[in-house]
């Protein structure tokens, strides 16, 4: 086997893992800091993708379409938290049902507004060569994007008052209130941030994954499993789980078929959850 082939597989697998991580971070933040499993997360990604697409169609450059999508999804997220999630605190399964239903509504609205097929925006055509192989720049760039997003969330949660309040609220909800933290305001903020991260994912991945009303499902399943495998130390856990599961599946797919890659993903997930029912990070002593 050639060295350049190995390097190519490694880079593109790292890129696949990063794409999975980008799509998962919003879910990880909401699950890790609110204990809410947002089954509409995939649809928030879809909303982000369509927001960015619409923005570029009315003439905004792609780089400005991304923050537009983030702001749009953050606002929608805050409204959803105030109207729905807030009523269901501490009722995990009810929240799952409600967000699942919400996802269907988003999905149908997207079909009504945009139809079932929509144009991609075309990937920037830059590429570079590794030996005999040519790689597109944009997907490789996602490794960098994922790293920046991780660093941003880590700093937000460890170096701001909001971040400390959010972590206190999930670790000891009653004590957080008893020392004066207004948990419901913190939660609205957290859900808005989680939704904004989903919007960012949808927008920034738009050149790779075109907007379709049902694109959410693809992300929801793998993202959900990644977060559950990660466990309570959300950020580090999700990064490792995305790298292991997403990267591993991609390497497997390169050597065999993409079906075997998916089988790898779900098999390893099942084994990990059997070994660590509370997630791989259940016993870690880390902040995030």
């Amino acid at each position, binding site marked *: 086997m050639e060295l350049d082939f190995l390097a190519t597989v490694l880079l593109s697998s790292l890129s696949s893992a990063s794409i999975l991580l980008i799509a998962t971070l919003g879910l990880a933040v909401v699950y890790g800091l609110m204990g809410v499993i947002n089954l509409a997360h995939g649809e928030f990604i879809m909303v982000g993708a369509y927001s960015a697409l619409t923005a570029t169609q009315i003439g905004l450059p792609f780089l400005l379409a991304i923050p537009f999508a983030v702001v749009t999804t953050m606002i929608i997220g805050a409204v959803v938290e105030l109207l729905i999630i807030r009523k269901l605190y501490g009722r995990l399964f009810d929240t799952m049902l409600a967000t699942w239903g919400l996802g269907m509504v988003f999905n149908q609205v997207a079909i009504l507004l945009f139809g079932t097929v929509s144009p991609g925006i075309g990937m920037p055509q830059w590429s570079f060569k590794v030996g005999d192989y040519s790689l597109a720049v944009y997907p490789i760039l996602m490794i960098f994007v994922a790293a920046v997003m991780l660093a941003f969330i880590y700093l937000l949660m460890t170096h701001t008052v909001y971040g400390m309040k959010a972590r206190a609220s999930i670790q000891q909800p009653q004590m957080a209130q*008893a020392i004066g933290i207004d948990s419901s305001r913190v939660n609205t903020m957290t859900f808005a941030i989680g939704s904004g991260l989903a919007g960012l994912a949808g927008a920034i991945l738009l050149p790779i994954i075109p907007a379709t009303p049902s694109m959410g499902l693809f992300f929801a399943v793998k993202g959900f499993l990644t977060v559950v495998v990660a466990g309570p130390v959300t950020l580090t856990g999700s990064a490792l789980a995305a790298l292991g599961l997403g990267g591993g599946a991609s390497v497997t797919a390169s050597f065999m078929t993409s079906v075997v890659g998916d089988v790898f993903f779900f098999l390893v997930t099942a084994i990990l959850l059997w070994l660590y029912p509370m997630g791989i990070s259940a016993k870690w002593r880390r902040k995030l």
Partner: protein
Amino acid sequence: MFKIKNATGGYGKTTIIRDVSIHVNAAEIVALLGRNGVGKSTLMRYATGLIKATSGSVEIAGETAPPSPAKRARLGLGYVPQGRFVFPRMSVTENIAVAAASNGFEAKKTVAAILEDFPLLQPKANDLAGGLSGGQQQVLALARALATRPKILLLDEPTEGVQPSIIDEMAGVLKRINEEHKIAILVAEQNLDFCLSISERAYVMEKGTISIETDRDSLRADKELQQELLGV
């Protein structure tokens, strides 16, 4: 200064405390005595708003307390729960800082001032709270409550599972903050010696109600009551 009036409440449909009224004057230390399961912790949680009141009211610094625990904290109610409940995946510094910031105080200054008051926590400042020993966590829970600059401090079984040397230190600290900052303290305890060493007045609870109100001297003299409280 701090009053609980006709408190009735519990968990779900189970009423645990019935028609309890107590008060703590400004800068006073009052003990809440009684054996296990008489409702001391429930009364504390009633006061914080963490359990819903069936009836009755709470008054903090002359104001009727709103239902929200967070608003009660900002009115000046500090709470150190039984079992400590520090934020385990946050550092010692963060545990104190978040309490200060949530009440509108500058985090850095408060942390520095509090670490000065609790030398025991200094070498652990950057450690995660979940890794501290029981006694250290108890001191941290107290430090966290003080960071909210309370006017009345509720302490629920602060000596439980804490080694004697730290208990003595804690009694000293409580007396000092009570004198220096004029913080009133209500302490629920089973450790009679600890209570006699810091408080001047005491309520005795039995089956969810206050059975006796007494002061230190009569409690010292009343061997029969002491025996009963110690569960001998």
